[in-house]
C-alpha cells in the first residue's frame, strides 16, 4: 500500500475539479479482479487503463460489443453500390453530366461488363471500409483528445508501460471520496491518486486560438477570389500553368521560327529563318492558272501577258523562252526585301489597292448563265456573307454596320460606312468592278475572294444587280433615280 490520496487538498482551488480516483495495480489479473469488485459494488462510471489489451476484462468492467463492424458493413455496401455506379456512369452511359464517358468499342468488349468492373469495385469497398474502421474507431473512442487530466498525473505514465489502472469517476452515483478510496485499497490497489482536472486545460491555448482564427480567415480568401472571378471578364488569357504542347521547339513549314537550340545559339533550317523553301518563281498551283481574267477577275487584260511578276523575275522568265506563268500571290518573297513591285504596279498582296482604270467587264462572262437558279444561289450567298453589313435589302443597314457606326460616334472605331448598293455611284459601276470589290474588298470591307468561290461571287453580283434594279430601299433615303420599284423581275437583270 503506497500513496494515499489526501482528500480535499487540491480540488478546493476554484479552477480545479475532482474527476475521480485512480488506483494502480501491478498486474493484469488484479486489475480484472478489481474491476469485478467495483462492478459488484455498484459502480458504473469506471474505466481501466492498461499497456496492452487484457482479455477477459470486457465483461468484468461491463463493456458491450462495439457496433463498429456493422458501421463498416453498412459503408462497405454503400461503397459497392457507388463503385458499380461510378463505372457504369462513366463508361456505359451516353450523355454523362460533365464529360463524355469512355464509350469506345475496344476489342469487341461490351461497355458494361461486370467481370472487368470487379477489381475497381473491390478496391473502392476496401478503401471505404478501411477508412470507416479507422475513423469510426477513433470517433467512438472520442479521440483524439489531447488534454486529459490523467496526463497530469506522473504515475499514469506507466499506463503505457507496465502498470494497470482503475479509474472511478466522481460522477458515479456511488462515488464517495473516502469510501471509494477505502474500497480501492481493499481491492489491492498499490497506489491511489485523485484525478484533478485543471479547468484551464479545457480551453485552447490562446496563441492556438488566434492562429486558428487567422487560418480560417485565410482559408476564406481563395473561395472569395474565385467568387469574385465568377462572371467577370478579363482582357488576358486564362492562367495556363502547364503549357502542355502549346509551344514546341520544332520547325513548322509555313511559319518563321521558332528556332531550335538555345537563345544564344539559335539554329534555323535556312538563313531566312524559314523551315520550307518558297516555290520557284512562276510556280502555279495545279488548277489555279486562271488565265481567263474576265471570269476570274472581272476585267479584260490590257497587257498581253497578264502577269504580275516580281521585279527582276519577268525578264528571267521571258528570257528562258518558256511561257510565263501568272503569279497571283507574292507571299513567297523573302522577308527583309523591299515590298515587291509588279509589272502592273499593283500590289495584290493586300488585295485592297486595285487600279481604277481597269477595263471592267460589263456583261457576265460566258461561263455564267443568268437564270433564276443563279439568282437564288446569289441571294442565299448574299444573305450569308453580305447582309451583316449591307443589310438584306442592300441599303447598308446591316447590324455590324449599325454597331460600328455607333462606335464611330463614340470615337471607339474607325469605320467607313458600308455603301448602300442603291447608291448612284454603285449603281453605275460595271459588274466587273462589283466582282472585284467582293474579291478584294474596299476600304474597311475585307476581301472575300478566298471564302467565296468564283461562280458564287458572280451569283452574288447577279443578285446585287437584281437588288439595284428592283430598287428596294427605305423611303427616307430613296432618291428618285434608277428604275422604279415595279420595274421587272430579277431575271431581267441584263
Amino acid at each position, binding site marked *: 500500500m503506497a500513496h494515499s490520496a489526501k482528500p480535499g487538498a487540491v480540488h478546493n482551488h476554484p479552477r480545479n475539479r475532482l474527476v475521480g480516483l485512480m488506483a494502480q495495480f501491478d498486474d493484469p489479473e488484479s486489475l480484472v479482479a478489481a474491476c469485478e469488485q467495483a462492478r459488484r459494488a455498484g459502480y458504473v462510471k469506471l474505466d481501466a487503463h*492498461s499497456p496492452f*489489451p487484457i482479455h477477459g476484462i470486457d465483461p468484468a468492467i461491463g463493456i458491450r460489443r462495439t457496433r463498429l463492424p456493422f458501421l463498416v458493413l453498412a459503408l462497405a455496401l454503400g461503397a459497392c453500390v457507388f463503385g458499380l455506379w461510378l463505372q457504369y456512369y462513366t463508361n456505359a452511359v451516353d450523355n454523362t453530366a460533365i*464529360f463524355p464517358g469512355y464509350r469506345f468499342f475496344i476489342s469487341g468488349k461490351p461497355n458494361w461488363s461486370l467481370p472487368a468492373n470487379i*477489381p475497381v469495385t473491390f478496391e473502392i469497398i476496401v478503401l471505404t471500409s*478501411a477508412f470507416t474502421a479507422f475513423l469510426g474507431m477513433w470517433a467512438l*473512442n472520442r479521440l483524439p483528445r*489531447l488534454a486529459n487530466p490523467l496526463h497530469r498525473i506522473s504515475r499514469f505514465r506507466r499506463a503505457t508501460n507496465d502498470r494497470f489502472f482503475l479509474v472511478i469517476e466522481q460522477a458515479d452515483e456511488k462515488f464517495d471520496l473516502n469510501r471509494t478510496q477505502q474500497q480501492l485499497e481493499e481491492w489491492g490497489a498499490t497506489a491511489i491518486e485523485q484525478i484533478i482536472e485543471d479547468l484551464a486545460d479545457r480551453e485552447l491555448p490562446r496563441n492556438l486560438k488566434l492562429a486558428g482564427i487567422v487560418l480560417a480567415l485565410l482559408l476564406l480568401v481563395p473561395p472569395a477570389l474565385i467568387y469574385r472571378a465568377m462572371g467577370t471578364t478579363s482582357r488576358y488569357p486564362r492562367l495556363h500553368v502547364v503549357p502542355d504542347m502549346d509551344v514546341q521547339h520544332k520547325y513548322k513549314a509555313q511559319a518563321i521560327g521558332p528556332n531550335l537550340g538555345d537563345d544564344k545559339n539559335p539554329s534555323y533550317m535556312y538563313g531566312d529563318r524559314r523551315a520550307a523553301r518558297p516555290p520557284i518563281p512562276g510556280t502555279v498551283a495545279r488548277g489555279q492558272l486562271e488565265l481567263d481574267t474576265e471570269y476570274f477577275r472581272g476585267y479584260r487584260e490590257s497587257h498581253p501577258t497578264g502577269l504580275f511578276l516580281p521585279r527582276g523575275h519577268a525578264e528571267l522568265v521571258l528570257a528562258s523562252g518558256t511561257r510565263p506563268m501568272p503569279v497571283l500571290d507574292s507571299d513567297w518573297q523573302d522577308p527583309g526585301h523591299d515590298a515587291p513591285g509588279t509589272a502592273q504596279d499593283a500590289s495584290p498582296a493586300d488585295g485592297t489597292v486595285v487600279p481604277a482604270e481597269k477595263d471592267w467587264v460589263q456583261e457576265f462572262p460566258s461561263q455564267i448563265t443568268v437564270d433564276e437558279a443563279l439568282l437564288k444561289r446569289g441571294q442565299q450567298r448574299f444573305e450569308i456573307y453580305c447582309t451583316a453589313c449591307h443589310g438584306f435589302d442592300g441599303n447598308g443597314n446591316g447590324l455590324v454596320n449599325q454597331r460600328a457606326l455607333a462606335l464611330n460616334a463614340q470615337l471607339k472605331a474607325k469605320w467607313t460606312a458600308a455603301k448602300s448598293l442603291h447608291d448612284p455611284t454603285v449603281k453605275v459601276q460595271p459588274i466587273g468592278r462589283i466582282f472585284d470589290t467582293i474579291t478584294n474588298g474596299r476600304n474597311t470591307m475585307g476581301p472575300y475572294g478566298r471564302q467565296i468561290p468564283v461562280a458564287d461571287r458572280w451569283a452574288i453580283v447577279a443578285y446585287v444587280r437584281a437588288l439595284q434594279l428592283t430598287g428596294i430601299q427605305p423611303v427616307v433615303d430613296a432618291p428618285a433615280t434608277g428604275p422604279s420599284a415595279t420595274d421587272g423581275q430579277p431575271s431581267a437583270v441584263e
Partner: protein
Amino acid sequence: MATTLDTHWDNTHEDPGKRAPLVLGGLDYAGVTDSVAGIWESRQPRTWWIVFVLAVIWLLILGGCIFHLFMKGVGVWGNCNPVFWAFDIVNFVFWVGIGHAGTLISAILFLFRQNWRTSINRAAEAMTIFAVICAGMFPGVHIGRIWVFYWLFPIPTEHLAMWPNFRSPLLWDVFAVGTYFTVSLLFWYMGMVPDLATLRDRAKTRVKKIVYGILSLGWTGSVRSWHRYEAAYTILAALSTPLVLSVHTIVSFDFAVSQLPGWHTTIFPPYFVAGAIFSGFAMVVTLLVPARTLYGLQNIITIRHLENMNKIIMATGLMVGMAYAIEFFIAWYGGVQAESFAFQNRAFGNYWWSYWIMVTCNVVIPQLFWIKWCRTTPWFMVIVSLFVNVGMWFERFVITVTSLSRDFVPSSWGFYWPTEVDIMMLIGSFGLFFTMFLLFCRFLPLIAISEVKNVLPRSEQH
C-alpha cells in the same frame, strides 16, 4: 531492465507439451518497453550513420535522375521500341512485391493467430509502406507528362474532358496500389498509436512531448478504447488479407490481360502473389537481422522468428519454382508456337543469363534452408535472402523484357539495354527506401511494444 542475451535457451525446438517462448532473456513488460524505447532514446550507433549517409547520397542521386528525366523526357531511359516497359515496370513490380510480406505478417498471420508475428510486424509494415512508395514512384515518373498525373483518377478535369477507362488493367492498378498504400498506412499508423503513447510518456524534451502527444492522439490505454481498437484492428486485418492478394493479382493482370507470348497466362496471379511474399520475406530478413544486432534486440526478434520466416521463404520459393516449371509445361502442352518460342527464348535466347540468374537465386539457393543450421544462422540467412532479392528482381526483368523484345513478328524484335539513368534510378530507389527505413528506426517504435507484451509468457498463462 537488463536485456541479457539468453543464449542457452533454444526456442527453435518444438516440444508439443510446452510452448517455446517468443521473448527471451526474461524480459518483463518494462523490459520490453525499455528495449524498444531505448533505441529511440539513445544516440544512434555509428553503423546507422554510415548507412544513413550512403542512403541519402543515393536518394539525392535519385532526385537528380528524376529531375533529368522530367527535363529531358523518358528518352533518357533505355526504353525503346519494342521494349517500352523495362526498368520502370520491373522496379515497380519488384518493390510492390516486397511490400507484400509486411501485410502478410501484419494481417494474414494475425488472422491465423500466429503470435510470433508481433516481434516483426511493425518493421515489416514500415517496410511495406516504404516499398510501396518506391514502387509508386516508377510508374509515376514513367507517365511522361507527370504534371497531369491526376488524369489517372476519375476526377472530372477540364483538360482531359473525359473519364478514365475502367476496363483497363492499368487503371485497376492505380486503384489497387493506391488502396493498398492507403490501407497499409492506416493499419500501420493505427497499430503504432499505443506505442507512440509509450514514447510520449517517456519523452523528455518539449518538442518530443508535443509531437508524440499529437501523434498518439491522446491515447490512454483505456480498456474501452482497447476493445474498439481490437475490433478495428481485426477488421483492417480482414480487409488487408484479400487486398494484398488482389494487389499483386492486379499487377499481374497488367501482363496477363495482354496477348503477348509469355505474358498471356492464367498462372500469373498466384505466381505473382507467391513471388511477392517470397521476395518480401527475403527483404524482411535482410532488414531485421542487421537491425536486431545493431539495436540488441536478439531477445525480442529471436532465432525462432527468423527461422519461421526462412521456412516461409523456402515454401514460397518452391511455389515460385513450380510456377516456372508449369510455365514451360504449358508452353509445350498448349502447342502454341509463339508461346513455346517465348519460353525457349527466355532460357536460351538473348537474355539467357537473366533467366539462369533468376532460377539459381530463387529456386536453387533457398533449398539450403532445408538444413537447420542454414535457417538458424543469422549471417548466413542474410546472404541467402540477398540472393533471393536479386533473383526476384531478375524474375520481373525476365518476364518483362524477354517477352517484349521477342514478340510474334521477327521484324519487330529488338534488344533492350538499360542506360546509366536506369541503373542509377534502381540503386537510387534503394537509397529512398533505406533513408525512410532508417528514419523510421530512429523516430518510431521499431517493434510493436504493446503487442509483444501481449505474448509474454505471463499473458499466455492468463
